[in-house]
């Protein structure tokens, strides 16, 4: 039983990270119907930027709540800015172009960010210092969890609740939902669609930035191409949940994390990805637009 609980915690940790990243995919998709392939690379960029900010500004070895918080905030701001820049330069000019053109642009942007990371920080693995978070470990009847894991799950949950409230209870949030449903109608309400899209990139990138820093802090070793792995998983999570649907992304992320942990723990880690994608295909066969996705009938 404690092994099961342990796997549950393992799965929830990764699942929270997937969910944070998946939100970025799903929000952009919801409004722009675009798979932002560069989103995963923003996550990687965040880890590198965060490390540099920590080391260069505060100095390796220092640590305090203020420092950690500052690293998170500054990194999130930088990544949000890069996200906005990305939209401005690579996606906005293509808003009326054929859909696949924007997909190629997104793939190009992914290459640009990934290789910029490599040129700036080098091709080798960089290693996060181990002292950013206390190395406290709790052990409850054999179920072990670290301070970092608690932070990952806790902060992710908080951010997701916050996002949920923002999207559902605020005027801007409602405007975002309205824009996602019908851009023209939204314009007729006086909603500045460009600003809505900018907001989405800010939020999505910032959430991705938090995920990137957590990945660095928890797993320590970061590589320039790691965005691809996390990005793909998060993207799959978003599709599973029903891309464009915010609760769907959260559900998909957690589900994917748990599923992965359980498969690796109980069946075989060798075949974990296969199981993941078989699950995805099965979901899509039965629910062609994901678990919480709506089926939209085409107007003839």
């Amino acid at each position, binding site marked *: 039983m404690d092994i099961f609980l342990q796997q549950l915690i393992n799965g929830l940790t990764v699942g929270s990270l997937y969910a944070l990243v998946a939100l970025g995919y799903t929000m952009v998709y919801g409004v722009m119907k675009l798979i932002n392939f560069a989103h995963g690379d923003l996550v990687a960029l965040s880890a590198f930027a965060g490390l540099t900010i920590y080391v260069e500004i505060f100095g390796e070895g220092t640590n305090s709540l203020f420092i950690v918080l500052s690293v998170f905030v500054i990194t999130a701001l930088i990544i949000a800015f890069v996200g906005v820049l990305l939209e401005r330069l690579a996606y906005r000019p293509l808003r009326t172009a054929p859909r696949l053109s924007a997909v190629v642009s997104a793939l190009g942007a992914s290459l640009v960010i990934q290789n910029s990371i490599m040129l700036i920080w080098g091709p080798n693995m960089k290693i996060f210092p181990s002292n950013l978070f206390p190395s406290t470990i709790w052990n409850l009847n054999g179920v072990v969890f670290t301070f970092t894991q608690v932070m990952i799950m806790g902060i992710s949950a908080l951010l997701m609740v916050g996002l949920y409230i923002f999207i559902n209870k605020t*005027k801007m949030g*409602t*405007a975002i*939902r*309205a824009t996602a*449903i*019908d851009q*023209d*109608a*939204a*314009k*007729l*309400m*006086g*909603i*500045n*669609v460009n600003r809505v899209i900018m907001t989405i990139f800010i939020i999505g990138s910032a959430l991705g930035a938090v995920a990137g820093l957590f990945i660095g802090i928890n797993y320590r070793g970061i590589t320039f191409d790691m965005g691809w792995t996390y990005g793909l998983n998060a993207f799959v999570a978003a599709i599973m949940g029903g891309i464009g649907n915010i609760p769907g992304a959260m559900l998909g992320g957690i589900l994917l994390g748990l599923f992965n942990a359980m498969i690796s723990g109980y069946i075989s880690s060798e075949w974990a990805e296969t199981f993941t994608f078989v699950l995805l295909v099965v979901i899509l066969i039965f629910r062609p637009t994901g678990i919480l996705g*709506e089926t939209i009938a085409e107007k003839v």
Partner: protein
Amino acid sequence: MSENKNLLEIKNLHVSYGAIKAIKGIDIHVKEGEVVAILGANGAGKTTTLRTISGLLRSNSGEIIFDGKDITKTPAHDIVSLGMSHSPEGRRVFGTLSTEENLLMGAYILKKYDKKVLDWIYEILPRLKERRGQLAGTLSGGEQQMLAIGRSIMSNPKLLILDEPSLGLAPVLVKVIFKAIKEISKSGVTVLLVEQNAKAALKLADRGYVLELGKISYEGNSEELLNSKTIQEAYLGKKK
């Protein structure tokens, strides 16, 4: 009333969809306080005209002047702030937002929505009040139309543009809708509407334009239009 100044003035407007010329040089004006109807068959260019006025489409040439300002190149969302509100064809309510959220979106440009306007909408369209918490997508067609109209006056517009408000509605609902439009007009809002229900529209309107193949083929007072054969011909093909 007809001595009032022009609130909206369209001069020699041309609009194309790709290679197809949809609007071929039309002139329309709407005076403050008026109700003006644009009539015409399917494909005549009525909706295109409205979408161009509210900034969703760009014209090839011509001028659109609203409340003294040239808005020919102003983006749609800024036009709303100038006091024009457009309730589009097919209602286009936000299906996964609740009725009240839809209404509040109508007041997006205001810092805070006007409680009085909301109450007034609930008063003239009481069905919306009953349905305030329900998702707009689950409303009936008539209720969605009420919502679309209600939503478009939440911003306290000077000019309300309505595209086919009676489309696909049962007569009893058409009655409710037109009554509400009358109320809105009475409160001082200028109305420009496109309608296929010519009789109902002309009964409400002061003046009307008949649009055929992207050109104005007839314009005049409502009575003139109603009594003329034009409408009968245009709609029922009673040969001249």
